[in-house]
């Protein structure tokens, strides 16, 4: 059964991708790293996303080996600049 996740892009990544949200289908058991690879494999503009980006899964920072679940919210987080 395919896995559907919502991918969010913020700030410079949103400008780069040209969208703030994208629904992506992945194979069951896919990880954050698989999602990044799948997107970058689509070519421009996605191949300009870093291969090792900062990612948050359901509002918590995660590494590339984090497994994904149905309906997860995966955010691509450019370097942050609060304060």
């Amino acid at each position, binding site marked *: 059964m395919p896995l559907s996740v919502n991918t*969010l892009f*913020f*700030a*410079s*990544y949103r400008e*780069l991708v040209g969208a703030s949200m994208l629904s992506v289908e992945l194979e069951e058991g896919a990880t*954050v*790293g698989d999602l990044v690879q799948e997107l970058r494999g689509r070519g421009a503009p996605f191949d*300009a*996303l*870093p*291969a*090792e*980006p*900062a*990612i*948050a899964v359901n*509002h*918590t*920072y*995660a*590494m*590339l080996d984090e497994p994904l679940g149905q309906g997860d919210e995966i*955010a691509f*987080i*450019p*370097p*942050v*600049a*609060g*304060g």
Partner: protein
Amino acid sequence: MGDARVIHCSVGPDVIDPIEVLSQVGSDEDGAALLFVGVVRNHADGRPVSGMRYDAYLEMAQKELGEIAGEAAEKLGTDRVAVEHRTGELEIGEVSVAIAVSSPHRAQSFDAARYVIEEIKKRLPVWKKEHYQDGTEGWVKGAVPPGTAAATGGVAKAGTTT
């Protein structure tokens, strides 16, 4: 939510009144209160700035700020931490962040307030776009959050905005 142990914590577009934030902390046990106010300044790296836009991943920023405030409360030894971070378009002199803490002794207040602002700059999913006086604009160079591939794997590659 990580902010269960602190007095107040919010991220959003409302104008920040630092005095109101300060007024939320304090107790008869406390000998020290500290208020930090971050303000949009008129220059950045030598370039004249006319304003700033703050973007945020709102739901996550609220959660992350709650966790930061909770960690500061542990340092403080009290729950008396109040913090607000603003989003949207800000003019020069407008308050972007206010952090108030209080504690029996001063050292804890200084350490806790400093911790909150330093962690905000490291971890809070907020981004600033500077509007320069010459009409151009640009994203402020940011920090790579710990606990991500960008921090541990490919800092050099992913640490700069594309």
